[in-house]
């Protein structure tokens, strides 16, 4: 087990190094710069700005400086927001994204898993068809359409939920649905299909033949095995919902990380773009690692240290 963890951490470090390097050089290769604007700044001032942010050094030196800072988790200053560092931006925006992400995560699993099981148990009944229809719909509607639609119906017309921000519990409802809509549909379909697959296995037939009550067949034998694909999906799900969705954060004016991410590309805010990309990558890798470890708990057949 320890060997497994060490080898995974090592490969994660390698992955991150590749991501850092690729992002850094790709980012600098796109045209434009952080100080370009309609009315240009004089060369003298541009020189001052570039010196201040150390953009006047050769690219490989900038890269070395960046990596040095990264090792002590100093992500550098934002080029656009005066006096604000990338660490500040993460500290300020991560809680909003993480809170909404946690709510969404719980919402997706709490509804998605039971809905999938129910759908599988009541296969081909009207409720199953209805759930399958909703799940297909949920996977095809883009989140910006869903978000706008939710605001239109529940805020603008019915005035049940607020339009923007994240202040009270009511503020979480619509963004969580918009953010989790796709994942919810995906989890529902996943649970349904893997549940059905498990139900067709020999050991289920054996259990039934032995007279095990149907309730136990479902929940003890079939469910445990059908959750493995869901656990696989949990890793990326956590990383996605926690790092913030640009669309959902934009529509609901949530001061989270997704917003900064896209703005940083438009503004060529190099350090912010780098910092958020790396953070995103770290979270994703960590989530996948955790998932790998959880496998063993659910299914003893999967031996991670083999």
């Amino acid at each position, binding site marked *: 087990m320890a060997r497994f963890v060490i080898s995974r951490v090592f490969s994660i470090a390698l992955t991150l190094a590749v991501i850092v390097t690729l992002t850094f050089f790709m980012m600098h290769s*796109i*045209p*434009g*710069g952080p*100080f*370009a*604007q*309609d*009315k*240009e*700044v*004089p060369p*003298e*001032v541009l020189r*001052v*700005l570039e010196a*201040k942010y150390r953009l006047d050094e050769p690219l490989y030196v900038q890269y070395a400086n960046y990596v040095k800072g990264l090792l002590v988790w100093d992500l550098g200053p934002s080029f*656009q*927001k*005066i*006096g*604000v560092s990338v660490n500040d931006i993460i500290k*300020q*925006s991560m809680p*909003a994204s993480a809170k909404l992400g946690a709510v969404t995560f719980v919402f997706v699993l709490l509804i998605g898993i039971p809905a999938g099981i129910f759908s599988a148990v009541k296969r081909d009944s009207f409720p199953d068809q209805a759930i399958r229809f909703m799940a297909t719909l949920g996977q095809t509607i883009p989140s*910006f*359409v869903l978000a*706008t*639609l939710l*605001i*239109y*119906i*529940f*805020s*603008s*017309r*019915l*005035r*049940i939920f*607020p*339009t*923007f*921000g*994240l202040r009270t519990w009511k503020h979480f409802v619509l963004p969580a649905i918009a953010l989790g809509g796709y994942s919810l549909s995906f989890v529902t379909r996943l649970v349904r299909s893997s549940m059905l697959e498990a139900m067709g296995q020999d050991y289920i037939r054996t259990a039934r033949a032995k007279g095990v009550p149907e309730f136990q067949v479902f929940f003890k034998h079939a469910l445990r095995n059908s959750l493995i694909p869901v656990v696989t999906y949990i890793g990326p799900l956590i990383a996605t919902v926690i790092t913030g969705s640009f669309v959902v954060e*934009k*529509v*609901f*004016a949530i*001061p989270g990380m997704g*917003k900064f991410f896209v*703005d940083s590309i*438009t503004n*060529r805010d190099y350090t912010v773009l780098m910092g958020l990309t790396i953070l995103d990558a770290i979270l994703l890798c960590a989530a996948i690692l955790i998932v790998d470890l959880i496998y063993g708990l659910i299914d003893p057949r999967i031996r991670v240290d083999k």
Partner: protein
Amino acid sequence: MNAISNTRNGACLVVCGAVAVALLISVLGCTPPAAAQPEQVIRYNLTTEPKTLDPTRNSDLMAGYIINHCYEGLLRDSNGKLIPGIAQSWDVSADGKTYTFHLRDAKWSDGKPVTAKDFEYSWKRVLDPEVASTYAYIFYFIKNGEARYNGKATPEDVGVTAKDDKTLVVELENPTSFFPQLTAFMAYMPVRSDIVENDPEKWALSAKTYAGNGPYILKEYGAAGLVMEKNPNYWNVSAVKLPRIESSFINEASTELAAFENGDLNILENFPSAEMPRISKTKGFVAFPQIVTYFYTINTEKKPLDDVRVRKALALAVDRKALVEKVLQGVDIPAINVVAQGLLDSAGKDFSKTSGNFGMDPAGSAKPDEARKLLAGAGYPDGKDFPELTLLYNTSEAHKQHAEAVQEMWRRELGINVKLMNQEWQVFLESRKSGNYDIARGHWWGDYADPMTFLDMFTSDAGTNWPRWKNAEYDKLIAQSMSLSGKERDEAMYKANAIFMNDMPIVPLFYPTDDFVIPENVKGVERTSWSAFYFGNTVIE
């Protein structure tokens, strides 16, 4: 954006069903009883969080709106009219080059007195190349302002001196009749040297250290929004009517519209353009004119665009009236000059309207016959053999719609094919700057209320001379008009403008208006000539 209008009918069923739920909720008494006295708060959305609130480093109008509430310059701009601010009065020397401002007794929000030294410090700070403020060019009218910013002069050389605590003497490069107006502009507002020097990078990030001398103080400031309240130490605090202003950072037009419609915002500024027909009929809809021109710049170095007849043909073939009525939904104003409307000459006449039509129809209709004749004269009868040109714009749904409309007009009237190409903003800036385009979109906001703010864009060595157009006579006239005043200056500027427009290195399209819904119960909303709101005199009835 279309999602809203398209889903309206489809959502009707859901809405009807849920209305019953909403009714039930209100019957159960969940809605608060209507207040007798309306809450005296303005809730106004700023689309994004400002990059900085430091007046000496800001170049953004959104932050300018906050600065206009928390700070006060020598003068104040109230609906475009100048009223006394920190300066009680001022004198101008006979040659028009020296202004002496006499300051009143005023305090900063922490109680310390506002002095002439504060102004001297702040203005010199903007011009300090080490500070690298991006709005420094608005101080080039001050003696040695440009030299200082370019690192060729010392702070002592700059023509701003606090003679004593109450007297500020400003020497200008040239007589500049609109200088008093500049002193009401956001970049000219003073900051406190002790606070700034204590933490030059971070002082403007926290409500605690953000000391101002204006009618409001910053009470709260975070990633979700900000709150301003009346400043008890403001010299004219008794005249400030509205106690509180809240601003959010909603960056999605459909959300702002929803927030306005359910009462979370008092003023509507951004809404999906598809909603314009409905919104423009709403009570309280106002379209403020602004000092802005939307145009297409023509690369005069490329064939066949180096031929003035081709450029004129392109300009005359555009039906601006149709563009405004059909594509822009009828609110903006057709443009036939690069200079925006509303800027006056020394006799008080509108410069843009007085300057002439340059062959175009002032009402905005196209002149297709003349356009075709010009194109034929250039060797392309009915557009035959005309090379395929590219019209470049930065990625945006609105710019695309405008480009498609103009593309169709050129095809129909001149028989020429223009390809549309969009680029991401930074890439676009780079292409336009380096002359790597045929025809490109341009959009210019005047920095101050004088025609010069548009005219000086196109001198041979200006960084904004996107058409790469060169005319020695034009350069001479612009340089001359800098040192002239009154009628002579007008004459030079009109002449320069005529040279430019008759050579047509740009195709003016329209003057965008700034559109709002301000409900009728919100009274006394003011706006500066540089498009920032002021809510100090606002009352909600």
